[in-house]
């Protein structure tokens, strides 16, 4: 019947979590940036000096500014600039949470193929987020 189209349970669950996660993430990056810009917390790189680094390749930047690799930023999260990474990381992690939420629903519905695809996707995203994969510098 026209107008009665209903998205599946897993799709609605995914949408609900994505909606909440996205809003928390965006709010977090705005608040943490405001804290950074207002100078509430001392930054690792002074705001006046950021422009010295952003023209460098990432390889040079990491060395010149003594930036930790991977999740190393957690060790300096109290610094104003690295506090921003909490919001950024949360925003980049929302999708993993969404996938984890739909896996039980898919298996409960005996949708094994999609359930396995969802698990594989979680593994791919966790691998990307883990920091294990290091790109060679240039």
């Amino acid at each position, binding site marked *: *019947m*026209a*107008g009665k*189209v209903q*998205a*599946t349970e897993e*799709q*609605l669950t*995914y*949408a*609900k979590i*994505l909606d909440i996660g*996205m809003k928390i993430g*965006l709010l977090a*990056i*705005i608040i943490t*940036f405001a804290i950074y810009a207002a100078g509430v917390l001392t930054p690792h790189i002074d*705001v*006046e*000096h*950021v*422009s*010295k*680094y*952003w*023209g*460098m*390749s*990432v390889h*040079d*930047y990491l060395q*010149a500014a003594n*930036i930790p*690799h*991977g*999740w190393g930023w957690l060790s300096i999260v109290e610094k104003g*600039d690295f506090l*921003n*990474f909490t919001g*950024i990381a949360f*925003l*980049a992690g*929302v*999708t*993993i949470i969404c996938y984890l939420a739909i896996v039980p629903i898919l298996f409960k519905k005996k949708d094994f193929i*999609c359930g396995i*695809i969802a698990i*594989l*996707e979680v593994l791919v*995203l966790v*691998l*990307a*987020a883990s*920091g294990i*994969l*290091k*790109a*060679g*510098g*240039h």
Partner: protein
Amino acid sequence: MSREKKIVLFAVIGMVIATATGVAFGEELATPPVEAAASTTPWWVWPLVLFVVTFLLGIVAVLGGVGGGVLFVPIIGGFFPFHLDFVRGAGLLVALAGALAAGPGLLKKGLADLRLALPVALIASSCAIVGAMIGLALPTNIVQTALGATILGIVLIMWKAKKSEFPEVPKADALSTALRINGVYHEASTGQDVDWKIHRTPMGLATFIIIGVMAGMFGLGAGWANVPVLNLMMGAPLKVSVATSKFLLSITDTSAAWIYINNGAVIPMIVVPSVVGIMLGSIVGVRILAKTKPAAVRYIVIVMLLFAGSRALLKGLGIWN
């Protein structure tokens, strides 16, 4: 001239002026990177200019029917003093934030289809990781040159590619049948529920290997490629293709974004004003779009991409630095 058209004109002119301002300030910083002196420009000017440019980009992107990332990377990369590594990292987060914001609504309305997205996302996100690692490992001039060539290719796709509201799919292929990729969506313009299914699934999935690599390598988002493949190759209705493509970006760009984050290619001073600017611009763009859709905007976007793509290509080749 209507109010909406004046806003669009203002957005385009404003973007050109703001970008030119960026170039002017950028030249001040055109010193060797490691020995670069601190800029005499107050620090807050940069995020402000970036915010203004990305806000205007957000408006133009919505009206031109493209994602923010595809405009962001070549324009900010070509005309601001930021290294391409950081621009690509920011571009991915810009595209990701836009996709995350649009995703819930598209899924709830049944326009984006999770079953269609699941296998496609797995391939594209895996390959986006590879693309991101290649992009961060290759010399900048090679990435810059390839980016320019890709942008010019996108211009060609935007100029030539056809769209099909309801592609004819005589028979669903075996793979899409096994994965039960089909659905029904409500077409508001006609009040009808539209049944759809897809074909050529293996070929479509194989194409997403290339799309994923390019998305990760250039930080562009990949709506420009997702939509033609889902719509013209695999036969999904146009609205389902556009919505699923937007949702897909939230997964593809997540995997690539993590590689950039973990490898240090994210500077909050570049990322946050860009994400906020383009999202606010998109909200304004959607409001303008609801009232009018100036056809000329699409051509303006094509010209902008042509210019930015040529700039990237020539910069990569060392002809226009």
